[in-house]
């Protein structure tokens, strides 16, 4: 029998085993993809027909009157996620830079550990915390409280991805810069961050995607409103809350709002994830050029 001859008895057994294992792996892939495809498919089938100009610009109506839209939720989500990003991006990027560039400090070690714990925290507990600290002291549910809760969800994600992407910047570049007589802080800002900026952008986009889909922290902080936002210190609508609230209602027209909202959210997330993929593709192209 020559090497590579699979006609013998052992060969048949090995081929059968190979087919079995390949089959199991393909099966696992299909099992993992089916729910994703089913969910996205269902959301598109149910949600896409809802989308029209009125749906994007009008306010929800009582269950018996057809038409209307979810402008209040789109506006509320945009404002709260935007405000949350304004809070979380500077804090998260700052913390990430500190973790990556000053790892020898004890404060850095402690806060990095805390950051990891915070990232794993159930988001409803973050919501309750903001409820206690902001909602109870200001005596109102508000967009501000919602944004603060979302920012607490975002900070650890931004900080961690910032830290990881700055750590990928070769140490030799920091030394090259310091050896030119450039101070450490300037080296960090002008060399390290500018080299790792695609990673930073990736982290920010992912954290925005995560915050846009968060429901639990908003339930106890921003609550809901069927009106456009006129006051950041009043209850505010959001797309996740809309899906939760209208989706559980017994009315057909309200279910339509929930499906439409879900569709917008899914499109937004897919868009962000796609941009991240493109960014990362470019980043790796850059690293190849470096080597």
């Amino acid at each position: 029998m020559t090497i590579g001859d699979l006609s013998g008895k052992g060969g048949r057994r090995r081929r059968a085993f190979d087919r079995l294992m390949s089959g199991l792996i393909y099966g696992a892939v299909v099992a993992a993809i089916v729910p994703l495809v089913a969910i996205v498919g269902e959301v598109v089938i149910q949600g896409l027909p809802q989308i029209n100009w009125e749906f994007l610009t009008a306010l929800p109506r009582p269950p018996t009157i057809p038409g209307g839209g979810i402008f209040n939720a789109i506006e509320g989500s945009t404002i709260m996620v935007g405000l949350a990003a304004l809070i979380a991006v500077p804090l998260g990027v700052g913390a990430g830079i500190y973790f990556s560039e000053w790892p020898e400090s004890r404060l850095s070690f402690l806060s990095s550990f805390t950051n990891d714990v915070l990232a794993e925290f159930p988001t409803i507990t973050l919501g309750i915390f903001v409820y206690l600290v902001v909602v109870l002291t200001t005596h109102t549910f508000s967009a501000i409280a919602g944004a603060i809760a979302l920012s607490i969800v975002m900070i650890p994600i931004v900080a961690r991805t910032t830290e990881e992407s700055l750590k990928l910047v070769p140490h030799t570049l920091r030394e090259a810069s310091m050896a030119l007589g450039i101070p450490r802080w300037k080296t960090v800002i002008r060399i390290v961050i500018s080299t790792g900026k695609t990673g930073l952008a990736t982290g920010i986009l992912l954290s925005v995607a995560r915050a846009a889909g968060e429901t639990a922290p908003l339930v106890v902080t921003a609550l809901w409103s069927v009106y456009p936002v006129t006051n950041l210190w009043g209850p505010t609508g959001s797309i996740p809350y809309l899906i939760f609230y209208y989706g559980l209602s017994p009315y057909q027209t309200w279910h339509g709002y929930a499906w439409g909202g879900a569709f917008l959210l899914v499109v937004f997330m897919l868009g962000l994830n796609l941009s991240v993929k493109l960014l990362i593709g470019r980043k790796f192209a850059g690293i190849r050029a470096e080597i």
Partner: protein
Amino acid sequence: MEIQESLEVRKEMAEVSTPTSLSGIQPKFETKGLKAGFGSSWVLNGIDLRIPPNRVTAVMGPSGCGKTTFVRCLNRLHELTPGAVVEGAALLDGEDIYDRNADPVAIRRRIGMVFQKPNPFPTMSIYHNVVAGLTLNGERDKKKLDHAAEQSLRGAYLWDEVRDKLANSGASLSGGQQQRLCIARALAVEPEVILMDEPCSALDPTATAKIEELIAQLKKDYTIVIVTHNLQQASRVADYTAFFYLGKLVEFDETATLFENPKEELTERYITGKFG
């Protein structure tokens, strides 16, 4: 075992003598009892070395002898590694760079460094790589920057190869060109000393020859300290050679003398390839 023994012998001997041709010459750099290490273990065990101005001094020795740590102490780069410790003195023109009032950033501007692997800034063009040391320290005058870029690239014998593509990424150049770009970047801040840490170890023989040619030119204007584990390279480029072993300076002499007529048995054994 024999090597260990001869090292023991060394410890009992008087300090390493300075080559007679250097007596009366004010050294550019002088280290006195320079010790360096990480945590509680010393990599360098008290180095006394006088580096002459406008000459090429090679620091040679087997892996782990402390030669890289030594040059990294000369521009206070060693201390940036977490856990690094330094003791003793390193005098640049008679002033201790480890003095409590010495500013490491200002010192590093007087001492350029070229690293083992070429490390141009990947996000910057060739032009911006060369003038990075100036722009990042606040120089905005376009004329001055253009002048510095051209002078430095000419100084590094790279100008003719890149003059038409200054806006291209520094990473687009070949390895040897990248290393000369890094030399140009070091020249642009007009240092007095250039430290080179095995600058050719990542390069092919042709690129190595070019860098060595360049070193011979640069010594007219700069004091050069080059770390190498390559004996031939030391003998080709260096006027003086220091032989390090296990964190100690074993012998320091004119390169020709050290290679042809070493005083120490350890040096001879290293040069003849008996160990290392």
